[in-house]
């Protein structure tokens, strides 16, 4: 048994559950001779990867699903050895260049070069190009993006690049203009409910409509999350009950509690407790921007409009710094401290005014 998310993932363009017009468009794209570079973007859990894989299958047939995992070694100009894991089939290669941090440029240049220069020997092969699938391009350094742009032009004959990103804001315009952009919006709650019901039917369990609705709304239109939640519910209680509790993820609860602590008391001692918890979150691999978002959502709940504005302003400032600086804890801490200070002053004024 594998996770439902993987088990019921559609594998071809005709089996996709939603965005059907788009699927039609993608089919048209495959049927034409000139396949452009693609930039597929959309929020997490919207089905970007599913669409890309279906598209590849449409291009090359089921052979793309025979995957191998390989480790490739590179040497940077500064003579540092780096290793990256790739997932490839005979027709395509998937890699996440941001795994190697600031050395992503080398990976992009070398990897695409290797792919582009090895000819496709399969004469029966329908295409004269291979596909390189780069995930999380929005996390690439600017340097790497410029290199990518050059590489795209250079090897256009033997290699197409599919880029996958959460948002296009960080992708440089030069790349955007060279790709055909495919926007993948998140599925609507109704679509999610239908999919959940279908999956449950296939699994032979009944999903109460109320529960389906609650899962859909709690998932924040993230299909992956919805499916994971649904499966957890099923594991926790079979048959599923309409009033069943949808379990929250451990780190979310932890983060919420942390935010509550911030509102509770504003003192150096509390600050130090909160810092310990922030560290705890970081150590468990929760990305700092996610912590930031979660904190902000919780904290503003106990503010009035004017304060909300100040808090959001501070959040925007420090969240930005998170991406500029190295030590995320400094910026998280600065935000929490600023909030505490704002909140404390506010409470004191309230008390003074009464």
């Amino acid at each position, binding site marked *: 048994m594998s996770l439902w998310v*993987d088990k019921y993932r559609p594998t071809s363009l005709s089996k996709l559950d939603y965005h059907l017009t788009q699927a039609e468009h993608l089919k048209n794209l495959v049927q034409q001779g000139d396949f452009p570079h693609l930039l597929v973007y959309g929020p997490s859990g919207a089905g970007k990867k599913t669409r890309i894989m279906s598209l590849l299958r449409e291009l090359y047939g089921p052979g793309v699903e025979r995957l191998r995992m390989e480790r490739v070694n590179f040497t940077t100009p500064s003579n540092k050895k780096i290793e990256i894991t790739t997932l490839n089939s005979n027709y395509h290669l998937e890699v996440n260049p941001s795994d190697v941090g600031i050395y992503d440029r080398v990976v992009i240049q070398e990897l695409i070069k290797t792919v582009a220069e090895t000819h496709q020997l399969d004469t029966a092969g329908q295409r004269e190009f291979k596909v390189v699938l780069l995930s999380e391009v929005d996390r690439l350094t600017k340097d790497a993006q410029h290199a990518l742009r050059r590489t795209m032009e250079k090897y256009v004959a033997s290699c197409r690049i599919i880029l996958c990103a959460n948002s296009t804001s960080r992708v440089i315009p030069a790349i955007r203009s060279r790709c055909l952009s495919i926007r993948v919006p998140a599925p609507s709650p109704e679509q999610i409910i239908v999919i959940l019901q279908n999956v449950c039917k296939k699994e032979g369990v009944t999903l109460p409509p109320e529960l389906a609705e609650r899962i859909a709304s709690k998932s924040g239109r993230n299909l992956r999350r919805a499916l994971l939640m649904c499966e957890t519910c099923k*594991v926790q209680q079979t048959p599923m009950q309409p009033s069943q509790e949808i379990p929250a*993820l451990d780190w979310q609860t932890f983060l919420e509690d942390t935010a509550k602590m911030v509102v509770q008391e504003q003192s150096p001692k509390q600050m130090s407790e909160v810092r310990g918890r922030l560290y705890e979150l970081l150590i*468990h691999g929760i990305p700092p921007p996610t912590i930031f978002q979660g904190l902000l959502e919780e904290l503003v709940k106990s503010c009035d409009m004017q304060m909300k504005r100040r808090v959001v302003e501070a959040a925007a400032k420090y969240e930005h710094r998170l991406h500029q600086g190295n030590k995320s804890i*400094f910026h998280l801490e600065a935000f929490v401290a600023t909030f505490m200070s704002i909140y404390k002053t506010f409470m004191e004024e309230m008390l003074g005014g009464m």
Partner: protein
Amino acid sequence: MKRHYSDTQVRRFGVCRSNICDPKKRDDLVINRNRIKDLGDWIDHATTAASVSLLLLCGPPGCGKTTCVRVLAEERNIELLDWTTPIDSYECSDNNEYLKSVSVAHKFKSFLLGVGRYAPVVSNNSMSFMTKRLILVKDFPTCFLSSPDQFTEIIDMYVGHGHTPVIFICTESVKKKSKDIAYELFSEEFKQRHRILQMSFLPVPVTSVVKALKRVVQILRVSVSDELMRDIATESRGDVRKAINDLNILSVNSSQPKKSTSSVNKKLRNQDKTKNSSSKDSDRETTGLFHSVGRVLYAKRDVPNDVVKKGNNTFIDPRGNLVHKPLEIAKEFCHYANQFVSLAHSNYLDIFSSIECIAKAAEYLSDSDIIMSEWREKELLSTVGFSVAVCGFMESNIDPIRRWKPLRGSQWNDDLRIAVENRISVENLLSDYCVPKNDIILEVVPTMKLMWCSRNRDSKLIKWCPKGFFPHRSEELLTAVRTIKSDILISPPCLLEKSRIDSDSEIHISDDSD
């Protein structure tokens, strides 16, 4: 402290220890009680268990790893067998690298297998009643560094034959870049295979070092002021051995150990070979890193009244001028900017008295981080960024708390480093799921845990997740994830299922042996 028992490979610790300063009782130890208890439990378990147990004990230098083992062993009347790399074998071998390494490795092997396998037949001293024994390997033969396989082989063999528990002691070097022995020799896989438990000691906090020093002072019957002891303790950075040595040297060399702080600092500094002769002014004399961090955080100011008298051509801060000039401190420590800032960062919350001051200081810290992160003008900007941090701390601290608190190093930095490694290994473990890497940690792993917990309510996992979280120590986390993966998600996801039908394709999943 160096051993010179080159001819005897087995050193027996007994009651006849020469060094009177070493702790004798459990209460004398300055290590975290839980750690001591853990170690004691392990020893109890290991010496009674049927199969052979191995333990890897890690920690920074001088945090009392060996001492703790020794005290606990003595408490339990366990004989301690210590491996010492024979020095003479280097000298007598005919300069042949290969032969030499073989011979040392061979000796190590015969030591382990010989000593660990058989109970002592002849008891040559009064300790014949001791039947329980422990092997202590502290001094790894250097030849294993170049060929870890050899080491693995010997241990494999030992696990098969021997029955005496072995404790490997591994000192973590302070520099992060130089990998320490444990990482080289004890790979994750290796630890897994033999269920080698890893225990880590942290640097000893300043107060505990002071406690240890006080005990030594009593034994040596010298009088040393509290202030001096505290200075020595902060200077030692959690290294008890160094602290005691420093104390010894001071009490032996100087006729008056009660000398003023600054001279002690000077002495300590000289030992550390820090260049400090250039500055003449005694106030500006190089003081230790901890000391200066303290100066910055406490931001002592002179009384405003005095300043008024001094004249009116200088800018007068109504709060009083700073006693120690921030820019001078910044200049002095610009080469240690990172350590300085992170040390100050881990301590300022304890010293600042109001949240407003903290908010201000935190903002300065955040400023300084983005300045220091700019790589294009690294040299210049790191100095600027550092100055911003130092000035920011001193400027924003309006009313520091008066009572003195010991400074602590931060254990988080190392933990964060481990966390990154963990994340990568977990991601690799689960990389056959068709999910972006971020979401593996954020969604898949927590969900797996939820499912697993609700299936096996009285499971090991509950123990693994003390705070409702996965443990973050690498080996525990990996075991947990691996167990879950194999328990509830027996078969891998769809992509791989498909390929199983096509028998010609092959999938390599990293390390999925469990």
